[in-house]
């Protein structure tokens, strides 16, 4: 499949898939950790000064 240039085509798609999915996983993991951190602070009774942002 993909003829003599498969060695260039397949790595192109693998690199793109890894970079985009890696970035998505990193952002999702960061969101999860931030939510946990926020919850921990709220449970500890820490409040933000401005309650509307």
């Amino acid at each position, binding site marked *: 499949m*993909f*003829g*003599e*240039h*498969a060695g*260039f*085509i397949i*790595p*192109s*798609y693998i*690199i*793109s898939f890894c*970079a*985009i999915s890696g*970035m*998505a996983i990193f*952002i*999702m993991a*960061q*969101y999860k950790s*931030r*939510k946990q*951190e*926020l919850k921990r*602070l*709220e449970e*500890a009774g*820490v*409040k*933000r*000064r*401005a309650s*509307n*942002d």
Partner: protein
Amino acid sequence: MSSETIKPSIWAFANPTRFMGFANKAIPVLVIITFLLLAVGLWLSFIAPEDYQQGYTVLIMFIHVPAAWLAMMTYSVMSISAIGTIVWRHPLADVSLRSAAPLGAMFTILALATGSLWGKPMWGTWWEWDARMTSVLVLLIIYLGLIALSKAFDEPSEAALPLAVMTLTGFAIIPIIKFSVDWWNTLHQPASVSRLDKPAMGPEFLYPLLIMALAYMAIFFTLHMMAMRNEILNRRIRTMKMSAARKQSVTIPNEGAT
């Protein structure tokens, strides 16, 4: 619809709390749209015929060109955000700028990497210091510089203005990248899609390319919104930690006095 009804609704989302509510609803929809566009785009790409000159390497075009377009589009989004910071000093504009920079760097790296993998079988070289490739490399350096600058300040609001000014200054690279193929002799061909007459490629290649470009745009808007949500949470956590630290520093001397 009158401007009176439009203006408040647009500005309503410029509030971080309202933006968070909007993002929580919009992200699942954007994820579905992204996967649908990717599925259709990849399907059309893989059923496209072999190019008479390039053979199957034309498949690389369907991911290389959208990555290159998104590298430039992301910088344009950052520049619009920079104007939002400079003119209105709106914190959400700074959040948008900071969150987009790593995504822009990723698309630029992908454009360079897939371009290199396409260049070797077609031009016989992994890299050439031609105008298009060099200017895209400069764009990557600008992205990395802006990411470094955004992390160089302890207080995010202190970095907002220098970051916005530097972003707008760096925008000069975008027209250079776009017109490099017209201004200089390069290995790249002149514009094939965005031409005044008609695209210089057949519909069997043009449609998969355009759908993949839309899919990449959907990826960007989804990840950008998710990253903006993270940045807002980062700032909330920072504010809470500082508030807790201040409270502690006020309490300790009082405790010592009693």
